[in-house]
């Protein structure tokens, strides 16, 4: 059975890009449009990995990481954000994110990072 990835981003283009990339590499993809939606979809689909934007309406990505880890302390979450400042990276890692990718995303780098955590 293919591994499941939850793509969380408020930008349609980024969800499409990651969905396209992951589906072409035999992953099953679910989408969420903000942090709150991500928490709900995580509980519903129990994905093997999450890619998470930071700046989103309703609930930001850092808060969503903390909420998802309350549901599943073993959750594997990779941040994908345009905001690569040191304080943002620190906040994401402190919240429990496993890795941090700065946009623009390089498809090969995204896949390599995902495979690192999904084996």
């Amino acid at each position, binding site marked *: 059975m293919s591994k499941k990835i939850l793509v969380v981003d408020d*930008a349609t*283009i*980024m969800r499409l*890009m990651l969905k396209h*990339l992951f589906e072409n590499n035999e992953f099953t993809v679910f989408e969420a449009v903000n942090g709150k939606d991500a928490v709900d979809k995580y509980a519903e689909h129990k994905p093997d990995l999450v890619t998470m934007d930071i*700046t989103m309406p309703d609930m930001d990505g850092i808060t969503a990481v903390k909420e998802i880890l309350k549901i599943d302390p073993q959750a594997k979450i990779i941040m994908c954000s345009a905001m690569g*400042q040191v304080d943002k990276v620190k906040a994401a890692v402190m919240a429990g994110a496993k890795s941090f990718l700065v*946009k*623009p995303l390089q498809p090969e780098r995204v896949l390599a990072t995902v495979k690192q955590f999904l084996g």
Partner: protein
Amino acid sequence: MDSRVANQFIMAAIEVFSKVGNVSLKKTGLEYFPNGHKINTGIATILGVTGDLKGQFIITLDESISLKIASAILMGVPVTTYDEVAESAVCEIGNMIGGEATTLLQKEGFVCDITVPSIVKGKEVNIAFYPIAPLFVIHFSCEWGPIDLILRFDNKPK
């Protein structure tokens, strides 16, 4: 405006377009508008800057370039009409330039954040900012066509 600030946005724009579309932005000119600026192009992506610097930056480009950006982000999938996907792509380009610029600005000692992007689409759009502050327009050319970067900051950097 401090040239260090302008330079970080210029470097960010060049870096982001290179990474997204493998296109080379070349600076072709700089204009100064003390009291605002009428934008003559199709799409303007406007983002606010908060923190140690306060102001806005705007990226203006033709609709045809927005389609190329969307296609490049989608790794070559053709995008032929300006719709939610293309609009989302120009918003993301704004976010990426803002993210890269604020990362570079942090190295210069300015801690800043950016606001969510807004899109203005139309011909001969007149954008006014208050309080009135000078606008700097940096003109670029690239394989996709002309792109402008407009910078406007309220206060002098610390």
